[in-house]
């Protein structure tokens, strides 16, 4: 309820409405802060628990000696606990602050630069995948016959393992993609791989979303004599957004996976894929760095997920609030 000093001006209904709106906005902001803080704390606590579990298991394995028979699972089904197989958590995180030999930057900085490189490839692929996926969804929503004919192929496309298509795309890129006005680079092949993983969830969920308006809404648009585009723009596209964003969250993380795998397959230097390959190769002499680089890739995945979530809040987030206020 408004407090006393605002009561004076409250006679003016416009001012009152403004106040109420302001307050609502304030509350919403506070809620957002509370939510973010709560989620962050939960995340950190959970991370701590995982680290504790890891360290505890390691300490237990070390104390009993892995090669024993009383606890047959430790060191055989579960990993061995020496530093080569399970580097201490402190050393893994300590890696981020260290400067590898022959480098001028700390490891976290190197990982950041490589993550930016991979993110660029992934994002380019993600955008193209979004466009292609939506185009397929629109086409399938428009022509039901097409849906029956094309959808199986769209699904089949995802059953081909990535490592099978990656070299094909790379070779095609170098050899056949010179129709484009720019010179084809290997990282673009990596983006194509990211696209390949991205368009599918967008197409499938986008289709469901476009088909989601109830018949009466559709009929209402028809009664307004709305044309195809108006119906799409005012009804079907807005209705598809929640479905679409669910797909985009999958697609964004998948594009990162696609870019990393693509880099490894195609031999592209500069991103996290090459980094992980490098650290896997150097595992014997530096196991903690492989763990650290994989954590870096995970952080990048979480980052893009959060970005899509934030965009979703901006674009569709108000919908629920608007309908309730």
């Amino acid at each position, binding site marked *: 309820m408004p407090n006393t000093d605002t009561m004076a001006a409250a006679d003016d209904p416009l001012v009152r409405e403004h106040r109420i709106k302001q307050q609502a906005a304030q509350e919403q902001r506070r809620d957002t802060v509370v939510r973010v803080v709560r989620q962050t704390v939960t995340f950190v606590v959970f991370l701590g628990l995982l680290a504790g579990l890891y360290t505890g298991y390691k300490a237990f394995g070390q104390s009993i000696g892995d090669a024993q028979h009383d606890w047959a699972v430790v060191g055989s089904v579960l990993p061995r606990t020496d530093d080569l197989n399970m580097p201490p958590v402190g050393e893994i995180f300590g890696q981020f602050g260290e400067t590898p030999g*022959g480098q001028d930057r700390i490891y976290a900085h190197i990982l950041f630069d490589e993550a930016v490189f991979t993110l660029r490839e992934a994002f380019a692929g993600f955008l193209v995948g979004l466009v292609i996926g939506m185009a397929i969804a629109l086409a399938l929503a428009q022509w039901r016959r097409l849906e029956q004919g094309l959808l199986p192929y769209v699904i089949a496309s995802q059953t081909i393992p990535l490592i099978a298509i990656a070299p094909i795309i790379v070779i095609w890129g170098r050899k056949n993609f010179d129709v484009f006005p720019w010179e084809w680079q290997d990282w673009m092949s990596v983006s194509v791989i990211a696209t390949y993983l991205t368009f599918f969830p967008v197409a499938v969920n986008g289709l469901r979303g476009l088909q989601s308006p109830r018949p009466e809404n559709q009929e209402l648009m028809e009664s307004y004599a709305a044309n195809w585009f108006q119906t799409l723009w005012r009804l079907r596209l*807005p209705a598809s957004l929640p479905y679409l964003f669910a797909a985009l969250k999958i697609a964004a993380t998948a594009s990162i996976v696609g870019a990393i795998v693509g880099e490894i397959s*195609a031999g592209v230097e500069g991103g996290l894929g090459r980094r992980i390959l490098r650290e896997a190769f150097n595992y014997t002499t530096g196991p903690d760095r492989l763990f650290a680089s994989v954590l870096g890739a995970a952080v990048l995945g979480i980052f893009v997920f959060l970005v899509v979530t934030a965009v979703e809040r901006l674009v569709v987030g108000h919908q629920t609030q608007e309908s309730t206020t």
Partner: protein
Amino acid sequence: MNKQKPWRLLALLLAFVVVAASCGNDDDEASEPAPSPATEAPAAPEPTEAPAPEPVELQEVSLQLQWVPQSQFAGFFAARDLGFYEDVGLDVTIIDGGLDIVPATVLDSGGADFAVSWVPRGLVPREEGLNITNIAQVFQRSGTLQVSFVDAGITGPSDLEGKLVGNWGFGNEFELLAGLVSVGLDPQSDVTLVQQDFNMTALVNGDIDAAQAMIYNEYAQVLETIDPDTGELFQPEDFSVIDWNDVGTAMLQDAIWADADKLETDAEYRDIAVRFVEASLRGWIHCRDNFNECVDIVVGASPPFGGPAHQAWMMNEINALIWPSPGGVGIMDQALYDQTIDVATSQGILQAAPDAGAFRTDIAEEAVANLEAAGHDVYGNDFARRTVEVKEGGN
């Protein structure tokens, strides 16, 4: 309200694209290869230095490597960075290998003008129809070892009987299999073959009794590893090594491959091939005589797997795989070629001995003649391995 939402989405996307694009430009500039310090180092007075006339149009040529940049390919990087390719009118792009990149396939499909590949890995796809040929046999011996802890008592292939024997697969195991057969062991039943990662963790872990290792890479890696029992680096005395060159089942490795038909039909391509091989071999000669400079070039080319000390080890061992080259650098050693084919056919790796077009020596011979005429030592008969300091983690 609804009307705004798609617009907002579009606007956001557009903003992203703009941001991403501008980031991209920045990064491209940043990632331009910085002129490596090695390029500026005054090269020892080169016998072939001719006063450069007005800049000639360089011909663009690409080379597909079998793996990522490392001293294994130092000669090519040296030839690029020191201007040896430019001297013969070529502008060479060196393409990294990758996990799924088969250089022979890339070459055949036109994805590169030349490729570096092990001989068996070139001959097998060739038998399946790829139109490629070996034009310069750079490595004169094999770098593949089988490494075990000395207390396992594995000093020869016959000692592998009943053991867990690591190998990488993908065609890296041929010498091992032939070595087992050569002492009367059946690879299917007398040993347990274990798929091994491209590192030495399984050996250090004790998961396998003998690990596959390249003398210039994984063998160095295990020497760069701390022995948990002593807290010091592992020492060469801790290991026994089976060298397939000694067993007699070694197969030829790094060679330069080219498009076979094009060499026949396209005189310009053949001419480029001669110049490319000449400048590449000059790079290898340079790396024999300027060890430290070449290590710096490799480390500067792009961050290699394994640090500077590891690359120094590798440079030394790679030189030892090339030098001495009794018939001249890059010239195929017929006896070793025959041995390679024997191993490959006896293992069923190749169905039959390849026809005479599998390799040709005319291009390398021309290149070597040019190099010799310019005063280079193309045999390296006085070559001796250096002593390279091993450092933890290769850094």
